[in-house]
């Protein structure tokens, strides 16, 4: 089997398993069978096997990590988000509802990637740098942390709406959800800042400048500043409840704009990897 077909088939197998995992989590949450949530986790683990294999096959075939073009970028983003989800569920097993947001976001990202151009692109010499690996890795960690903050915010929203049900009652208090939301945003900010710093070191090595006000560079700063504003408002004015939910969603929107939308819409030195 040619490696592209193998990589494609493994990806689709992973998507199918993630969809089954979502159904298992939904069943556990909606019909109040908390102990059955473990089937969901097992299915995510099962999905991660073909998913990891697909990424490795592609890595070997292309000679570079999964960071060129949508196909690779979205798939590896989903991979990191799901690994982070599993780590989180291992630490906080009661929070299965978070999986109901993180899983669909992840397999939709993968689906979007799978319908994009699967061509393998040669890595230009500037992209051959260990700082690229840090840059990309921390960016994916940031995306994963932001997805989890959104998952906490959406769950908080349901709880605040007065929605009741065994699964919502089992979730921690609204205060704990708010704290988690803030903490995920905080971790996301740290990872995002690390992405920017790794990028700055790399740009300094490669182009001879650590900052150049390029469109995508500037939008990554705008994203950082949006999240910083959110954290200041939480810290200074005790932002919570529905407002916290909407602020979190708004900031997530800015990060999505920076990572997934602007690289198509604006000419930038940083956009080639995604187009």
């Amino acid at each position, binding site marked *: 089997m040619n490696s592209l077909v193998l990589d494609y088939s493994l990806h689709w197998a992973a998507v199918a398993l993630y969809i089954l995992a979502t159904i298992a989590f939904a069943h556990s949450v909606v019909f109040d069978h908390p102990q059955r949530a473990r089937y969901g986790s097992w299915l995510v683990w099962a999905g991660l096997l073909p998913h990891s294999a697909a990424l490795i096959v592609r890595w070997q075939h292309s000679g570079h990590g999964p960071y060129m073009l949508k196909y690779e970028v979205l798939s590896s983003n989903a991979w990191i988000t799901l690994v982070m989800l599993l780590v989180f569920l291992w630490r906080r097993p009661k929070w299965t509802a978070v999986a109901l947001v993180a899983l669909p976001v992840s397999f939709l990202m993968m689906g979007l990637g799978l319908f994009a151009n699967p061509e393998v692109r040669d890595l230009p010499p500037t992209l051959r740098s260990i700082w690229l690996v840090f840059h990309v890795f921390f960016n994916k960690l940031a995306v994963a942390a932001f997805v989890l903050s959104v998952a906490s915010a959406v769950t908080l929203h349901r709880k605040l709406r007065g929605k009741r049900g065994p699964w919502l009652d089992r979730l921690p208090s609204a205060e704990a959800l708010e*704290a988690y939301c803030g903490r995920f945003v905080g971790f996301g900010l740290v990872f995002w800042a690390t992405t920017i710093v790794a990028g700055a070191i790399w740009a300094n090595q490669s182009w001879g400048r650590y900052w150049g006000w390029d469109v995508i560079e500037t939008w990554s700063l705008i994203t950082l500043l949006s999240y910083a504003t959110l954290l200041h408002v939480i810290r200074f004015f005790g932002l919570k409840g529905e407002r916290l939910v909407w602020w979190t969603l708004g900031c997530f929107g800015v990060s999505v704009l920076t990572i997934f939308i602007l690289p198509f819409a604006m000419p930038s030195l940083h956009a080639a990897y995604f187009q």
Partner: protein
Amino acid sequence: MPPMPHFAVIRRYLRRLLRGPRTIVAEVVAFTAACVVMTIVPQADDATALQLHRFEADWPRSAQFVRLLQLDQVATSAWFLVLVGLILASLGLVLVEQIRILVRTWQRPVTEAALASAPFRVEFERPARGGPAIQLGQSGRVGYAGAAMLHLGLVLCVVAGFGRMLLECNGVIDLVEGETLAAGDTTAWARQWRGALAEPMQVGKSVRFDKLVTTRYPSGKLKEMSAHIRLGAGPASEDHEIAVNTPLDIDNERMYLTADGGPAVLLDAGRGDQVPVAVLLRDVAGDALEYSGTVRGIEVHLRADRSRSGALPNQVFARVLIDSGLRYAGPLAPGQGVNLGQGQHLAIAEIRHWSQFRARRDATLWLAWLGLASGLLGALLIYGVTPVAWMVRVDPLGDREHVVIRMRPLRFVPLFRERFDELVRTEGGNEVRS
């Protein structure tokens, strides 16, 4: 009327204003908005004339407004500089305050009084166990330093940015294999851009570009590229390599290899035996590399196909004119020449590679790295290490004991419920009342 009280009042007002939470949030939001503007409105110093023109044509009304508010040159506009000044002032005040609090918190031991209003509190009785009457402790103290380090990092980055604006110097130069950039030469650079206080670009040692080495993918695209260079002259000279992502430090300057360039044609032109002139073929359109210009009074147009493997062409197609009259059109290979009449000739001595190099001097770069490191570490401390203070007080009650447990995490309070419950359990409390 004594002027001092006024001054003190104004100072206090300003301090309260600049340290006010609303002001701080407004400053961060305003800076964010300025960044958004920079990406939407073409900026005069890096947009092309066409982009600027198109913006004016598409948005005639906004264009006036843009010019009035200097939105097309945000980074150097007066309002932006004022905003950055305000941010620096707020950050300075916050920093002084945070460092003071840090020193105080660091030196002060945890006391029972300080935990009087702790969010987690429980009291219970248990059979007497003995042990100390009061235990006070804290973990994650280093987390207190987070906010100060983060904001110190931001200040350093802003200062480094200003330093760069004033002191940075950049130069771009195209060198042909075998060519030497002389030490201290400030005129050889094809382009220079520098801050108001920066000295012109020059390098402290002569740089001879010996050879370009490239490797390519099967598709023909460039995979790796490096330049072998010789630094200095005479017996003390040293061989070095500059590659993409591996620049070379030459005293205070750093030199980068930025583009593989293309073929350089060394022309023997004119009337007699003169030193060959190197002309550079550049990517003009599609697969063609071209040069057009005048060499010792002879109008020369050269064209070569771009090879997928990056190899130098064996020959070029030449069109040669003198006083607008065509004298030659046809292929020319190294070692071949044509007689142009009137005692003039044109011959190709050799074809070599040329490459583009860039040199940069940034005296405040270290400050930027220090700022980024401090900011990053600070953010990591804020979210990775939460300081937690706790107390267990035991009062004897005959053969039983009255136990008071208190715990205060600095942030994310609800997330410390489990830790508190665990502490209560180990102290023998089976019922939690907090």
